[in-house]
Structure formats: structure tokens, C-alpha cells
């Protein structure tokens, strides 16, 4: 992997921040974008744009072809068996809400439960809480996690037996880095007669998903975390499930016939894409899949594991540094606290050194509560980060903690 060449694709990585070279270690919040992705969008918007699906004129047909090609590209990228299994949404959050309102509300019956875990992102907590307000006959179960940040599988299997209709778990934790044993989880869920949704927001940017092989019923993720644009994300679902699901939003494109006496709905995937879709963004996401495929997801995975090791090594010297999340199978994310230094102070001073990390609860407040901490500092690495950046980071970490420990 020619990192220098790759970094040329990301102009922001050459920026200065506060007079220092930017060291961007906030990739789990959102990744940077290569020129190839932005160019694909700009070209589309400047030279090829038109509304999709209903137009007979050339531009509309071309736009439709590009939009549907993007769907096929994403389907192939994640290892789906059919393009129609890929639904465009705004992101992980909308995908989860769609699942709650369309799948869970329609198919879960009185007394059934949704099983999540203590390490979930708010996007995999709040939609279920909102659903339960309307459906107080359903229950939300929360699987415990171990101190090292791995799922408590004993608790998982025990809770799964308690009338669970839908399991919804993160594939990779954004706050801890934990990669969950999805094959085992999917098998257990199916054996228990439950469906399973996986939050792949932090998985899809980092390794090959192979969703059909894994066998999950639903997989959700966001474009902006995988070198794609903002405003686009995916709900993958097995076709036979999607075909049974009622629509989430109503409007143009998702209908077959509208009349005041009754309306019928379109086929999957269009049934779930009401209104003018995010056309340029879908095209951008397709370009992001192509970009990552060109580099190679296996290469990316290996590179990021390497960076994780280098970073672990580099910060091992920092006094009083405690890492949260030490799963054996872990993405390139390090959540930590140094002594009693507040993450906000840490992040603010590191920023003065040009180092961008995320601080706070990472939209996982229940997880922070579980560890009895107000939040953490989180450095998250992408394949385009370098060993030199990690050295700068470790160096700034020492200086910052000295300054804040006065």
C-alpha cells in the first residue's frame, strides 16, 4: 500500500491546524473523503443531474442508471446476493429507525423483546425506546458486557431465550473497538427463532463484511464513515423480509398507485425510498466502495491492525493511561483516560498540537455509565494514518498530560 500516494487523494490531510500539521485521529466519528468520491459527486451534479426513475428523457435515464449502479456497487461491496437488498437511507440512524417502525412494529408481537447490549450507540438504543412508547407491550433487553469490553455471551444466550423477536447488536463498538463474534450471534439468534440486525457503522469501513455469508437479517451503516459523502447510508435486508415489510415514509417513488380510496406500494427497494433520493450521495457512496475496493479491504484491515499495534506501543509509556476496551478482536480504536484528567481538557489541549481526537460519551452514555466514567478520549485510526502521526500523537499526549497534571 503506497500510503504517500493514498494521502494525496485526501487533501485535508495536508492541512495545518493551529499552526501544526493536522493529525486526524477522529476517523470513527467520520472519515475523510478522497478526491475520487468528491469528483464523482461533482461530475454528476454539474454534468449529469436530473431526477431519477420517472423521466423518459435521456438525463433522467442516465441518472437512474447511475443511481442503480451505485446500489449494485454497494451490494457487491458488502457481499449481498441481490441489489434489491440494499436500501438507501441517510445513514445508520435512519436505517435503525426504519427497522424499528417498519420491521419491529409490524412483526413483533405482544410480550416479545428486542435484545441489544450495553455497548450500543444511541442509534441502536433510542429508536427502540421510542418504539416502546408506542408499543408498551414490547420489551427491551440489554445484554451485559465484560470489563474488557467484550459481550457477555452467557448473558446473551440467557436473555435470548426470553421471547426475543429481534436481536440488534453492534458489529464493532465505536467506543471500545470490540469486534463482536457475529457468526456465533447470528446462529444463536436464528436458533432461538429471532431475527438479527447488525450495526455495521464501524465495521464496513474496516474489513470485508460478506453479509450474505454471515447471514444477518439486517445490516445498517453510514456512508460518511467509509470515505463516502454525508447524507447517505444503507439498510441491507434479506429480500424475503424486506418484501413483507410495510413502508416507513410515504411519498413519491414508493407507491404503485395513489388514490383517495386507497394506495398500493411499490416493490422493494423503492418502497422504502420515499421522495427524491440522495442521488449524488448514492453515487458518491458507490465511488467510495470502488475506492476502498481498489486499495483492497484485506489490505486496509491489515494496515489498520498494524497501526493499532504501533499506537498501543507508542502510548504504553504514558503514565496513568488506562485503556477502555481490550477485546482480543478489536478495531483500530483506542479509548482511554489519563489519571483524573477530564477528556474535554485533554481534547482541547491536544487540538492545540494539531491532534484531532474525539472526547466525551461517543453517543454511548449507557456504556460510560457501565464503566462509571464521564467519557473517554478516543483516538481512531484509518488506513491513511501514518506511524509518524502516531508518534506526534503520543508525544503530544505526554506534553498535554504534564500540562494538565500541574
Amino acid at each position, binding site marked *: 500500500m503506497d500510503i504517500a500516494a493514498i494521502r494525496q487523494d485526501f487533501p485535508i490531510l495536508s492541512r495545518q491546524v493551529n499552526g501544526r500539521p493536522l493529525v486526524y485521529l477522529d476517523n470513527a466519528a467520520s472519515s475523510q473523503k478522497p478526491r475520487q468520491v468528491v469528483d464523482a459527486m461533482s461530475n454528476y451534479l454539474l454534468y449529469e443531474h436530473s431526477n*431519477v*426513475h*420517472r*423521466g*423518459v428523457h*435521456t438525463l*433522467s*435515464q442516465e441518472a*437512474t*442508471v447511475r443511481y*442503480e449502479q451505485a446500489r449494485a456497487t454497494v451490494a457487491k461491496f458488502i457481499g449481498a446476493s441481490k441489489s434489491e437488498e440494499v436500501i438507501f437511507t441517510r445513514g445508520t440512524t435512519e436505517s435503525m429507525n426504519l427497522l424499528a417502525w417498519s420491521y419491529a412494529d409490524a412483526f413483533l408481537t405482544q410480550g416479545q423483546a428486542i435484545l441489544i447490549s450495553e455497548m450500543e450507540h444511541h442509534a441502536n438504543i433510542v429508536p427502540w425506546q421510542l418504539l416502546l412508547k408506542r408499543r408498551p407491550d414490547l420489551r427491551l433487553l440489554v445484554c451485559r458486557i465484560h470489563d474488557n469490553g467484550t459481550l457477555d455471551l452467557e448473558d446473551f444466550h440467557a436473555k435470548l431465550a426470553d421471547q426475543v423477536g429481534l436481536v440488534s447488536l453492534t458489529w464493532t463498538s465505536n467506543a471500545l473497538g470490540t469486534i463482536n463474534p457475529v457468526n456465533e450471534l447470528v446462529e444463536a439468534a436464528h436458533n432461538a427463532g429471532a431475527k438479527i440486525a447488525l450495526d455495521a457503522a464501524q465495521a464496513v469501513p474496516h474489513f470485508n463484511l460478506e453479509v450474505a455469508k454471515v447471514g444477518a437479517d439486517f445490516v445498517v451503516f453510514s456512508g460518511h464513515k467509509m470515505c463516502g459523502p454525508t447524507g447517505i447510508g444503507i439498510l441491507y435486508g434479506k429480500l424475503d423480509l424486506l418484501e413483507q415489510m410495510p413502508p416507513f415514509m410515504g411519498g413519491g417513488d414508493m407507491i*404503485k398507485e395513489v388514490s383517495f380510496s386507497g394506495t398500493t406500494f411499490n416493490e422493494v427497494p423503492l418502497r422504502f425510498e420515499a421522495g427524491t433520493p440522495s442521488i449524488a450521495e448514492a453515487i458518491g457512496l458507490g465511488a467510495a466502495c470502488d475506492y476502498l475496493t481498489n486499495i483492497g479491504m484485506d489490505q486496509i484491515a491489515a494496515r489498520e491492525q498494524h497501526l493499532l499495534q504501533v499506537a498501543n506501543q507508542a502510548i504504553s509509556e504514558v503514565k496513568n493511561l488506562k485503556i477502555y476496551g481490550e477485546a482480543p478482536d478489536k478495531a483500530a480504536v483506542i479509548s482511554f483516560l489519563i489519571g483524573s484528567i477530564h477528556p474535554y481538557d485533554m481534547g482541547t489541549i491536544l487540538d492545540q498540537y494539531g491532534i484531532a481526537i474525539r472526547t466525551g460519551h461517543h453517543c454511548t452514555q449507557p456504556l460510560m455509565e457501565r464503566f462509571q466514567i464521564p467519557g473517554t478520549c478516543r483516538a481512531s485510526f484509518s488506513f491513511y494514518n501514518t506511524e509518524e502521526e502516531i508518534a506526534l500523537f503520543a508525544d503530544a499526549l505526554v506534553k498535554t498530560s504534564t500540562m494538565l497534571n500541574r
Partner: protein
Amino acid sequence: MKSIAEIEEAIIADFSFLDDWADKYNLLMDLGKELSPFPDEFKTEQYRIQGCQSKVWLKSHLSQDKKVVLEADSDALISKGLVALLVKVLNNQTPEDILHAPLNFIKEIGLDSHLSPNRANGLASMLKQIRMEAKVYAQQTASAQ
């Protein structure tokens, strides 16, 4: 009875004489007019092909000699021409032949823009519907044996 490939060849030849897009569309619409009349009583939702901006109806049955008999109509001239093209090529063929026909002629006569995934264009939907019905007949025939 000519084979699908032979009919395709003939159509390609007819269109290849025409340089002008207008002549091609005129020929297409003429083909539509050659379709045998489609009884009004069958112009119902049941026989309508979904996914076309115009209304397109298709009705098929399996003849005694196990060939698929196709009838079709549309309220738009171009759609009618397109479905007529398909009827011309696929009518009175066996279910298996229909299912395996690559139908390259569509590209060769320059009408492949009508095959785009755009739902406004019916050609893809028409083809899908014909193949679906052929599949049912093929299964019927197979299970009857």
C-alpha cells in the same frame, strides 16, 4: 416456424436499413400496428405490466403443442411497438427457448436505452413479465411429465 435467432436476424436487417432515428421509431410504431387486436375486456389490472409509464397489457397461454402464445397491447404507440417487437420474436416459441433467448437484437437495433432500469421504460418490465410467465409454463410442463 422460425427460431428466435432467425426472427431476430430479420428484425436487425429491417432496422439496419434505417439511419435516421425518426425512421426507426416510425418502423417501431408500424410494428405496433401489426399486432392482432387485443380484446378490451382483457385491458384490466390483471393483465397489466407494472413499471411502464404507459399502460401495457400482456396475455399468454400455452398452446396444445406447448408453445407460448402471446397477445399484447398498449395505450402508447412506442410502448406498443416495443411490446410488438417482443411478441414478434417470442410468440409461439417454447417456454425453454424464451427463457434462454439472449435477445441481443434489442441492442443491435439501437433500442437498448429502453432497457434501462428506469421504470418509465417498459421494455425491461415487459421482458421480465414474459419470462416469468414462460417460467411458469416451463414448470407446468416439467411437472406434467
